[in-house]
């Protein structure tokens, strides 16, 4: 799966590339708008990570070009601006998602995965790992074709894990992902612990191997290896 990262901040680009290096993705980097426009003309990407504040222009013009070229590459805008206007404009121009800096790389992973699924398999929007099938449209989970009854939070948690397999995810990151803006109000760690415990129990009841490994009680890792 090919991803184009349009990011002018070299350090951040480097970190993103490194984070996804052993992933199933192949990430290419464009650090200017010109370079990015050049690349989308030549290649097809499954997902484009687009920083809109670029030195040689507004990244939104890339969206216009994609539209003009009638390309359907998935686009996630990553912006330092938490601006509602930009968000509306970007999504209106065909972007699929909008992520405000700073963000957790695992958060980026879950969004990339969701978009690639949506773009790639039209009509079959699923994540499949180790016998687990996560249907993003139906919000349903199956293990060996046997349905699991998960709460919405548990579903989102599993999606998060499956999008970042083999990655260590800290409790804080997971809590922020699950709670969003409600993060400030509850003991996130406790909540994550409860949700993970319930999810693990339900997976075990369905006969699934224990894919979710606890790392020193501060983090988790989803791995089928």
């Amino acid at each position: 799966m090919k991803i184009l990262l349009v990011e002018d901040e070299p350090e951040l680009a480097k970190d993103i590339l490194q984070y996804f290096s052993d992933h199933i993705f192949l990430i290419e980097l464009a650090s200017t708008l010109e370079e990015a426009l050049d690349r989308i003309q030549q290649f097809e990407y499954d997902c484009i990570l687009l920083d809109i504040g670029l030195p040689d222009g507004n990244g939104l013009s890339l969206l216009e070009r994609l539209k003009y070229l009638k390309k359907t590459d998935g686009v996630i805008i990553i912006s330092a601006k938490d601006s509602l206007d930009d968000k509306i404009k970007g999504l209106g121009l065909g972007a699929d998602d909008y992520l405000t800096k700073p963000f957790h790389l695992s958060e980026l992973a879950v969004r990339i995965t969701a978009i690639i699924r949506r773009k790639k398999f039209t009509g079959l929007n699923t994540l499949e790992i180790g016998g687990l099938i996560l249907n993003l449209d139906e919000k349903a989970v199956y293990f060996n074709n046997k349905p699991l009854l998960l709460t919405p939070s548990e579903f989102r948690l599993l999606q998060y894990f499956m999008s970042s397999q083999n990655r260590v995810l800290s409790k804080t990151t997971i809590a922020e992902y699950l709670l969003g803006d409600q993060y400030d109000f509850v003991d996130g760690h406790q909540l994550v612990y409860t949700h993970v415990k319930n999810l693990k129990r339900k997976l075990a009841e369905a006969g699934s191997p224990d894919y979710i490994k606890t790392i020193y009680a501060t983090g988790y890792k989803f791995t089928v290896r």
Partner: protein
Amino acid sequence: MKLLNKSFRPFLIFTLFAVAISIPLFYWVVQAIYIRDADESLLISKKQIQTKLNQLSSDRATQDSLISIINQLEIGYQLTPLFQDPPVISDRYFTEEKFDAVHGHVEPFRILETTIEVRGIRYRLTTRVDMEEYYDVIPYTALLAGGFFFLILGGYFWVNKTLSKKIWTPFLKTLDTLENFNISSGKNLPTMDTDIVEFQKLSGILQNFIQRNAALYEEQKKFTENAAHELQTPLSLILAKTDLMLQSPNLTKSQLEKLDEIKQVISRMKKINSNLLLLAKIENSQFESDGPLLLKTILRETLDFFKDVLEARLLTIDLQIENEEQIVANRFIVETLFHNLIGNAIRHSPVGAVISIHLSGDQLRIANPGAKKLSESGLFKRFSTTNSRGGQGGLGLAIVKEICTQNNWQVAYAFEKESHVFRVIF
């Protein structure tokens, strides 16, 4: 007291005082002058009659008949021969009210009583002047003088009033503008329309002040916004690098814990940063109205957002809505206002507490149980100690305050019956 009254009142008091003194004073002075004049003319009459009688009395018989005629004529002279040698009386002047046959009523007379000598015979001379005409004039003159005083007073008042109005109108207009002046509006004070040098100077100084303040304010706002913006990238980098570090093999437990703690700190910084940006945007009035919004709908949506948290903390909401009112505002701004206030109430409520939310008329009241009154000074200020422990990085209430200021709403805190109460009046 208004400026105009302030300047007029002492003048009025002074003028009344002057008039009160001047009328009797005027009366007495004029009277004294008349009496002096009358006395002078009486003395001259005395001298004339003495000289003339001495000239005309060629013998004793003529002398007696002349004196008799003078006495009978009753033209103000009475001569009485003095046969013995009484002590010489000096000139005696006095005023007496007497019946005047000519005028037919009692009149004041100025009288001189003296002694004259005609050819060796001494006479007591009583001569008089009618003061009636003089005395008649005095009160009229005094009245006239008083009348003019009042005319001057009235004139001054009228001139003062009309002139002051003209003079002070531009000043008062500027004062009114200044009262409702918003430094963040980007506008300057209009120049005072006046030809008075002092006011022109004041106008210039005010404009200068406002310009400088507006520039400073603008700079400060830009600084906050830029600083918060510039921090986004380094924060992203720290976050990305902690994510990367988390993936390194063979991390020890304490390293993993430290990394998670770093992530928590970054979360806090993220929150502060985004709140600072939000505050700067509200200050910049970057949120346009979305048209009429139903307050109760937004309130219900906000409570819906907190459903999980309320459940997790076993909190109950006592919700009373008696409001169908719509307000014209930006939806996101109203949501933020509700979110911050309700969020605070949730955060500071003990587990199992009841939060009361009451929306009625144009007022929203949010109350949550609390142990003791919060210090009010600085409660709504940025990063004040009172609210820095909240999850909003000490900016939640500052944002609430700024939203209310920008929309001309009022927000107040009170501690009532063991509860923290926040009220917003739309």
